């Protein structure tokens, strides 16, 4: 039983599509994240001060009452604990990953190298990520299985840097492959499934039946993740895989495949094949090819 009625509800689906069509691409202003962080820190300080001040006020009042009873200033009864005022401290949550099937790394260990959102992305700097869709196309085409052909590439990305979306055909059926090269600092490179889970609501995770698996290096550090969805249980048709790998310099190479040739991937996107065009190991092999990060194409 699914709580998501829009799957089976034509009326709701129609309204939702209308909303999507109307709002697609609408984004917050670029300076909003910075403003939020600034205002948020200020708010947190204010709340901390208010909490501390409030407790001190109570403590002072209690001391004033207690002193005469306790015999004077030499024997002040401790009242109130400053520990009670530290509710805003962020101790790591020893909780579990909230994505079904996720493996967890120790969330108490700070992940090194997580960039601040407000850091400028070095998009202008030269690097392996500065590859146009046309260049990426040439690299991808050479590495696809022999029985797979590229039907077309999304033209709107042709001259963009670091993103390529193609429709493919193979004995598996038709599908879509999307590749992205992200410069260090452009996106958070925290590859833990926990970080991914925050980006999805529980409703979305249920709807897409999403699972996340962390990829670790020999030392056990989380350096990538695999996210797979299968919307069939919720009445949809979409199945897709996404593999994200953190590069040594902190960038990200990622690839997604889906069993639909629709531009947008929704749970109810019509399936063009039973399976996505590539398996997870095939995507991993493709992304681990050093050609993506050596700048040679």
């Amino acid at each position: 039983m699914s709580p998501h009625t829009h799957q089976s509800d034509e009326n709701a689906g129609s309204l939702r599509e209308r909303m999507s069509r109307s709002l697609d691409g609408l984004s917050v202003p670029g300076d909003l994240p910075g403003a939020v962080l600034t205002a948020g820190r200020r708010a947190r300080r204010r709340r901390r001060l208010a909490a501390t001040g409030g407790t001190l006020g109570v403590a002072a009042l209690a001391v004033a009452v207690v002193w005469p009873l306790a015999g004077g200033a030499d024997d002040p009864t401790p009242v109130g604990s400053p520990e009670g005022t530290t509710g805003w401290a962020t101790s790591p949550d020893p909780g579990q990953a909230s994505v079904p099937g996720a493996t967890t790394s120790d969330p108490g260990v700070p992940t090194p190298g997580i960039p601040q959102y407000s850091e400028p992305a070095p998009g202008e700097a030269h690097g392996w990520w500065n590859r146009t869709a046309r260049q990426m196309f040439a690299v991808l085409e050479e590495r696809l299985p022999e029985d797979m052909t590229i039907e077309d590439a999304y033209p709107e990305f042709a001259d963009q840097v670091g993103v390529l979306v193609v429709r493919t055909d193979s004995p598996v059926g038709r599908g879509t492959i999307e590749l992205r090269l992200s410069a260090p600092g452009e996106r958070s490179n925290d590859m833990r499934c926990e970080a991914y889970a925050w980006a999805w609501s529980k409703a979305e995770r249920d709807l897409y039946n999403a699972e996340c698996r962390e990829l670790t290096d020999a030392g056990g550090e989380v350096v990538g993740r695999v996210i797979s969805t299968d919307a069939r249980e919720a009445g949809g048709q979409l199945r897709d895989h996404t593999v994200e790998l953190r590069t040594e310099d902190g960038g990200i190479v990622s690839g997604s495949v889906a069993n639909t040739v629709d531009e947008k991937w929704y749970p109810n996107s019509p399936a063009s094949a039973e399976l996505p065009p590539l398996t997870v190991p095939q995507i991993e092999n493709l992304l681990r090819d050093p050609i993506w990060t050596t700048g040679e194409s």
Partner: protein
Amino acid sequence: MRSRSRHDAEFAEFMAARADRLFRSAMMLTLRRADAEDLVQTTLVKVYASWAKVRRAEDPVAYSHGILHKTFLSERRRRSSGEVPVGEQFDQADPDAGDPADRIALFEALGELAPLDRAVVVLRHWEDLSVVQTAEALGLSEAAVKNRSLRALRVLRAGLDDPHLNGAQ
């Protein structure tokens, strides 16, 4: 120091992933870009200030959307100013985003709804919450959610000239 850095990094990741979605919900609630920006900023500041609590919630995304809706309805109660006619609302809308004609029609139709009905529509049909979840989020009974949803969809059907919107709850 390390804790604060981690706090900020986690929150920044969350914000990067969810801000646009929150903004689109806010646009449908407020019907005005400037108000939507204010609403999202206020919401995210609240989420930031409570991040230690939010991150431990079973569903941090739903939690943040709950804050957005509560803030919207609370602002509506506090403000005495009415809404601006739809024609004046979209002069600053991003021309590259979505279909402008569709958006104007949608917002005109949403503008016909009472704020609480609009919130019901956004939660039920944009954020995919069930009747029970919507009722909990807005502090309404399930029957009230169904009634408001039916009424709202009737209005939207007329406004959008969409015969498919014929009574989903």
